[in-house]
């Protein structure tokens, strides 16, 4: 069954068509990679799903509920959580405080002004659990801006996961991580997202082939093909699109 469904989605920026009729279905529990050459519209797909952009045309459904045009925070509260290609953390806050922001939101304490944050056992306990399960204990009290890049990427991913999302959207999770670290990062990703529905945009084909069950190839704002890894590898159009780029 489709968890997330895009029906004929268009997005143009003052005349420049970035998405031209994208239809896409993400199945429950699958690991779906979106690949394609630069400028194919991969990140824009994420941005229309999460409400950052309103699609010019077309509809987006989450569990058969039409979420087209909803604001970002409402979509996030449904359980669709994303990470960013360019690390987007709360820089002056510690790792603990970063994750606490996610936990406070998850527990629906966002508007609570009658209790003190550090007196709330519920929040405190959940934060400790999250930190432990995401293995961030060693950097718990380090401000996010002082972390090494590799740790920042981990925290970026962890912030997304700390919401216990239903669908996880990862925008180039391994961007900028050096080859040596990528291996362990991918392991970390696999473990922490186990059993969840995962959609990711990724450039690194090794990572895609390692993680994904199914792949969608985008080119010039259109879906070229969707299929299993094997099908994609054999597909001539895909080979042409990638070869044509070079």
């Amino acid at each position, binding site marked *: 069954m489709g968890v997330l469904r895009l029906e004929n989605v268009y997005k143009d920026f003052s005349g420049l068509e970035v998405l031209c009729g994208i239809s896409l279905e993400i199945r429950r529990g699958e690991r779906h990679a979106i690949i394609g050459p630069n400028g194919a519209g991969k990140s824009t797909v994420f941005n229309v799903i999460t409400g950052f952009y309103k699609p010019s045309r077309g509809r987006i459904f989450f569990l058969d509920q039409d979420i087209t045009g909803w*604001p970002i925070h409402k979509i996030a509260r449904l359980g669709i959580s994303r990470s960013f290609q360019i690390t987007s953390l709360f820089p002056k806050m510690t790792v603990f405080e970063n994750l606490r*922001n996610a936990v406070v939101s998850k527990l629906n304490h966002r508007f609570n002004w009658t209790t*003190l944050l550090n007196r709330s056992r519920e929040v405190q306990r959940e934060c400790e659990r999250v930190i432990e399960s995401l293995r961030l204990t060693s950097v718990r009290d380090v401000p996010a801006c002082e972390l090494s890049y590799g740790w920042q990427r981990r925290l970026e991913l962890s*912030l997304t996961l700390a919401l216990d999302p239903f669908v996880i959207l990862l925008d180039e999770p391994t961007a900028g991580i050096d080859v040596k670290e990528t291996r362990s990062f991918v392991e970390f990703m696999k473990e922490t997202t186990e059993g969840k529905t995962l959609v990711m945009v990724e450039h690194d084909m090794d990572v895609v082939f390692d993680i994904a069950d199914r792949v969608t190839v985008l080119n010039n704002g259109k879906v070229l093909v969707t299929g299993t890894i094997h099908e994609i590898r054999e597909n001539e159009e895909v080979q042409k699109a990638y070869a044509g780029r070079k």
Partner: protein
Amino acid sequence: MRGLRLDTLGRGIAIILLLLLPQFLPLIYIHLATEILIYALFAVSFNLLFGYGGLLPFGHVALFGVGAYVAALIFKHFPGMYLPLTLLLTALSGVPIAAIIGFFCLRLKGAYFALISLAFQMFLYAIAMKWRSLAYGDDGMTVNRPDLYLPVLGNLSMRSIENVYYLTLVIVAIGILACYLFLKTPLGNSFVCMRERDIRASYLGYDVFLTRFTVFSASGILAALAGGLFVFFEEFVATSCIDLNMGISVVFMTVIGGPGHYLGPVLGAAFYIFFQDWISSLTKHWWVFMGIVFVGVVLYFEGGLVSLFTNGKVRLWASRLKGG
């Protein structure tokens, strides 16, 4: 642990000093201290938005002015009203005005936010200036301080500056404490995390506009209360309570004192008033010198006066004590 105790000790001494101040200071300095407290409350309100929220409400003085005029009108037309009730109404009068201003400003970011906020201040300034039958323009109006009746203490005469000082001290202390505690609640934390990265906050499920709107409106309470206390203290209101000079001085106080620290604006207000008092006795061009201080702080002393206590040597020293 010793560092922590030192901190508590410092605060204890400060409180005792503030309480005993009128006993050993000459009258003129009690006046000055009262003025500082009132400005401090105003600056705390500004700092909530600027230091903690990353918003620059350039026209924040609009709310101070609204409080000042509301208090003045109550003092003038309902002289018998119970003083705490007057101050409560004054404080609450800031909320709807802040809500209206915030509703429009908070859709914008950065410089545009600051400018639209300034436009509202100009608009209210124009009303205060032109609506002479109500506000008496730049002639202003004189009001009388009502006395305060308290259950156990009896009737406290507000002709006595000591009593005015103590009343102000209590109210301002409550205001600052409320602000301090608010920032430790989940809602306060939500507001701060939006300063850090508002887009990420939305992706975590925070409604950025609604949160900022709520805090912005609430900040009107403190600003208007400060305005009301100002009129109570000065026994006079005029357009100077809502003009640009007043608006700039709160920015100066907060930046010089240290935005983003709950005591920064208090130190800033103290420095500003003392410095103004001292330098204006030497030259009438005191603004020039204040400007130089401001530029100096912005360029070379980010973090303001309060960072003297929280950063660098003092902090190092404190942490060494903490370490044993």
